[in-house]
C-alpha cells in the first residue's frame, strides 16, 4: 500500500539532563495511515509526540509535514498546520459543560449556540454521542475522552495523535473508538497511535515504529507479527509470565459487608453496598474504568475514609471505624494509586518515606522517638530486595522514576509481613520488566498466606494474577467470580458495556 507521505521525521534527538529521551529517531507517516508508536514507559514516545505537537523543541533533526519543513514552536502552531492531539490525561474543567470546555481549547471560539450545533454534528458523524450542555464533572472517563476527540475533530486535522487512549475504556468502548478511528483514517486523516497494548495495535494499526530507550529498534506491519514478537521487540528481552504456586485457601482475612460511603473527592463516586471477602492466599482482582469508585474503595480499606465498624473486618475483627495506623496494626497494608503525594511524600527521602507506613509494623519508634538507623536499614532492605534503582536511600522520592518509586512503595508494604494487602494500580506507568517483578512479589506474598486485593484498570494484569474477579461500576461491585473460565465478553458486560454508546453506530 503506498500512500502520499504526510509527516516525515528525520534524525530527531532530544536530551534532558541525565537522559537521552530521543536518539536519532526517524520514521514517516502516510496520509490516512494509522501508525503505532510502540514502546515501554520511558522509551521516549511522549517526548517524541510532544515535539510533533510543538510542546518541546528537538535538539537535532528535522521534521517535514505535507512536504514543507515543520518546526512548531508551540501547540497553537501545530494545530494551525493540522496536527491535533488527545492526551492521556484530560485537561477538562469539571465544573464547566462540554461546549464551554471545547471553546476554551479554541483560539477563536464561535458563539456558544453555533459551537453546540457543530459539536452535535461532528459527534453524530463519527458515532460519538455527546450532549454539549452536560457538565463534564458528570461524564464517565470514556465520555470525557470523546470531548477531547471532538475538540480535535472540530479543527479538521490531517494528523491526530492519540496518547494511550484506551486505558480508560471498557472493551466495548474500545471497539467503538476503533470504528471512529478507522472511519477517520478512511477519510484521509492519519493517526499516530501511542500504546503499549499489543493486541490493540495489531487490530488497528497499519504500521508500527517501535522505540526502546529513545531509539527506533524496529519498524514493522503489526498484523504480520504476533503479540509476543512485538513485546519482545519492545522490551528487548524474552518475557516469561509470572509463576504461581497457589497455596491452600485459608480462613477469610478481609471481609467487606454492604459498604457504602460518600466520596470525599469532588466529583468522586460514592461506594454503594460493596461486599466481598478475601481468604488467606487468595488474590481478588477488581477491574473497572477509572473514576468508578476505585480511589474511594482504597480509601475505605486503608482507613483514610471511615465507615461503620462492622462494614470492614480484618482478621475477623471489626475495623471499619479504625484509622490507617490502627488498620496497619490489625495487619492491613495499602498502596494507593497516586505515588507522588499520596503513597509517598515527594520531597522526603526514601528513608522518611519508608517510615511513613513502616513505622508501626516494623517497630521503628521507641516511646515516640524515631529510630532512624533502623528505618534506614528497612529502606535499604526494600531497595535491595526489590531492585530499586537509586543512588541511595537519602534521595528524595520525586527524584525516582515512576517505576522505580513504585517498586520501592510496593516493597515497603509487602515487607511488613502483612495479613491483608490492598493495592490500587500496582503497575500503572511501570515498565514491563518492573511490572513483572511487582506482580511476582504480590503473588509470592499471597502464596505465603496474605489475602490480596488488587484494583487495576489493566485487564490482562488482573487475569494474570487474580483468583477471583469483580468489577467496580459506578461505585457498585459485581459479585466476585473465579477467573478461570471468564471470557473477555463477559468481563466487558460486567464492566457495564459501553456506557450508552451502542446507539450511535446503529444509525
Amino acid at each position, binding site marked *: 500500500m503506498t500512500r502520499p507521505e504526510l509527516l516525515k521525521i528525520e534524525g530527531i534527538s532530544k536530551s534532558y539532563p541525565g537522559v537521552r529521551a530521543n536518539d536519532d529517531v526517524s520514521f514517516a507517516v502516510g496520509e490516512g495511515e494509522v501508525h503505532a508508536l510502540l514502546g515501554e514507559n520511558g522509551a521516549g514516545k511522549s517526548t517524541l509526540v510532544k515535539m510533533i505537537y510543538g510542546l518541546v523543541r528537538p535538539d537535532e533533526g528535522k521534521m517535514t509535514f505535507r512536504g514543507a519543513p515543520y518546526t512548531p514552536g508551540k501547540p497553537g502552531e501545530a494545530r494551525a498546520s493540522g496536527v491535533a492531539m488527545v492526551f492521556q490525561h484530560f485537561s477538562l474543567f469539571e465544573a464547566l459543560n462540554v461546549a464551554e470546555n471545547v471553546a476554551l481549547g479554541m483560539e477563536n471560539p464561535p458563539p456558544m449556540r453555533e459551537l453546540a450545533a457543530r459539536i452535535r454534528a461532528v459527534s453524530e458523524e463519527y458515532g460519538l454521542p455527546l450532549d454539549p450542555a452536560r457538565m463534564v464533572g458528570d461524564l464517565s472517563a470514556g465520555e470525557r475522552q470523546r470531548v477531547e476527540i471532538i475538540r480535535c475533530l472540530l479543527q479538521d486535522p490531517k494528523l491526530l495523535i492519540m496518547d494511550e487512549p484506551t486505558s480508560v475504556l471498557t472493551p466495548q468502548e474500545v471497539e467503538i473508538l476503533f470504528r471512529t478511528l478507522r472511519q477517520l483514517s478512511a477519510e484521509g486523516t492519519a493517526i499516530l497511535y501511542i500504546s503499549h497494548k499489543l493486541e490493540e495495535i495489531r487490530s488497528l494499526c497499519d504500521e508500527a515504529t517501535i522505540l526502546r530507550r529513545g531509539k527506533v529498534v524496529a519498524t514493522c506491519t503489526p498484523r504480520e507479527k504476533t503479540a509476543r514478537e512485538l513485546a519482545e521487540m519492545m522490551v528487548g528481552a524474552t518475557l516469561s509470565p509470572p509463576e504461581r504456586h497457589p497455596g491452600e485457601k485459608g480462613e477469610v482475612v478481609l471481609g467487606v459487608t454492604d459498604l457504602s460511603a460518600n466520596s470525599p473527592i469532588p466529583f468522586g463516586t460514592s461506594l454503594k453496598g460493596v461486599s466481598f471477602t478475601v481468604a488467606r492466599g487468595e488474590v481478588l482482582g477488581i477491574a473497572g474504568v477509572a473514576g468508578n469508585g476505585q480511589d474511594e474503595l482504597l480509601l475505605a480499606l486503608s*482507613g483514610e475514609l471511615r465507615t461503620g465498624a462492622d462494614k470492614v473486618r480484618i482478621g475477623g475483627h471489626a475495623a471499619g471505624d479504625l484509622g*490507617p*495506623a490502627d488498620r496497619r496494626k490489625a495487619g492491613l497494608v*495499602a498502596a494507593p494509586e497516586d505515588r507522588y*503525594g499520596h503513597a*509517598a*511524600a*515527594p520531597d522526603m527521602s526514601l528513608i522518611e518515606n519508608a517510615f*511513613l507506613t513502616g513505622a508501626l509494623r516494623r517497630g521503628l*519508634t521507641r516511646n515516640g522517638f524515631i529510630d532512624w538507623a533502623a528505618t534506614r536499614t528497612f529502606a535499604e532492605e526494600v531497595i535491595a530486595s526489590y531492585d530499586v534503582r537509586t543512588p541511595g536511600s537519602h534521595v528524595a522520592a520525586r527524584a525516582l522514576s515512576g517505576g522505580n518509586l513504585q517498586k520501592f512503595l510496593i516493597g515497603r508494604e509487602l515487607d511488613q509481613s502483612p495479613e491483608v494487602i490492598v493495592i490500587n494500580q500496582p503497575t500503572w506507568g511501570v515498565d514491563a520488566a518492573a511490572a513483572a517483578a511487582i506482580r511476582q512479589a504480590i503473588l509470592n506474598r499471597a502464596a505465603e498466606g496474605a489475602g490480596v486485593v488488587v484494583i487495576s484498570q489493566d485487564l490482562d494484569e488482573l487475569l494474570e494474577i487474580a483468583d477471583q474477579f469483580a468489577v467496580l461500576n459506578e461505585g457498585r461491585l459485581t459479585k466476585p467470580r473465579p477467573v478461570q473460565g471468564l471470557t473477555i465478553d463477559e468481563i466487558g458486560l460486567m464492566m457495564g458495556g459501553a456506557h450508552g454508546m451502542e446507539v450511535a453506530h446503529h444509525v
Partner: protein
Amino acid sequence: MLRLEKRPTPSKFWLYATPVVAVLLTMIAGGILFGLLGKNPVAVIRTIFWDPLFGEFAFYLRGQLLVKAGPLILIAIGLSLGFRAGIWNIGAEGQYIMGAICGAGVALALYPTESRLVFPLAILAGALGGWAWAMIPAILKTRFNTNEILVSLMLVYVAETILAKASTGFLRNPEGAGFPGSRSFSSYTAASNPELIAGSGLHWGGVAALATGVAAYVLLSRHILGFQIKLAGQAPRAARFHGVNPERLVLLCMGLSGALAGLAGLFEVTGPAGKISIDFNVGYGFTAIIVAFLGRLNPLGIVLAGFLMALTYVGGEMAATNMGLPSAAIQVFQGMLLFFLLGVDVLTNYRIRSALMGAR
C-alpha cells in the same frame, strides 16, 4: 530568556546560603532607600548592623539584643511548627497579649503574697492564656472550616482592645493616682522576672527561648510528632495515609504556638516591660513571623534569625534616633528582609537556566 527549572532534590547549598544572600540584598536595597532619604547609606547600615555589637554603647546594647531576641525566638519557634504543617497562625501578637494579661492578672490577684509559687503560677497562666486565645481560630477551623489566617489576625485587634481595658480598668494600679498601667512588677519580687546575669539581658524568657529551640529541634528531627508535622505540610494526603488526624494537628500546632506566644508575653510584662500598659507590646508577634521564615522554619536557624532581627530592632532604633530616620523606614527595611528571603528562597528548589543553554 531566563526560566526556572525544578531541581531533582532541594539544594543543600542554597538552603543555607539564602538567608545570607537575602541579608546582603536587603543591605543593598535598604542602602538605596536610605540614600534616597538623604542619609549616608554606609553610615546607616553600619549603625544598624555594627554599632550595637561593637560600637560605643555596645556594653548596653548587647544586653538589649537578648532582651529582644528572647521573645522573638520563643514565638517564632511555636509559629514555625504550625507553618511547617501548613497551619498559618498569624495572630501570635494577640496570643502574646492575652498571655501577658492572664499571667500578670494571676500574679496581681495574689499581690502582695510573697511566695515562691507566684511566678510559676503566673507562667502557667500566661501559657494558658495564649493557648486559649489560639484555640479560638483552631476550633473554628476544625469545626466550621474557617480560615485561621483571618480569624487569628482579627483576634489580635480584639486582644489589643482587651489590653486597653486592662491597663485603664481591671488591672490598673490602684495606687497609681489614676494613671493607666498596672502595678510595677519590679517592686513585686515574687512575680518579677529579673535579669539573671547583670548586663547580659538574660531573663527567664531568654532561658525558655533557648530551651524551646533545643526541644523543637529534637522534636522535628527525632520524634514521630515532628515527622507528622513536616509530612502534613509537605504532602497532606500522604499524611492522612500515614494516619495523621489533620484536625488534631491543627489543635496541637495552634495550641503550642499560642502557649509559647503567651509565655513570651508573660516574661516580657513581668521583666523588661515591667507592667501591663496600653502599649507594652511592640509587635514581636508579627516580627516573629519574619524570624520564623528567616530561620528557614528550623529551630536552630530561628535562634540565629532571632538575634539578627533583634539587631535590626536595636540598631534601627539607634539609626532612627541618632540619624533622624523615620521609624517607618526601619520597618520597610525589616520588611525587605522577608521579601528578599522569600524571593531568593526559590533557588532552593529551582535553578535558573537561560533558554539558550537549554536549547543547545
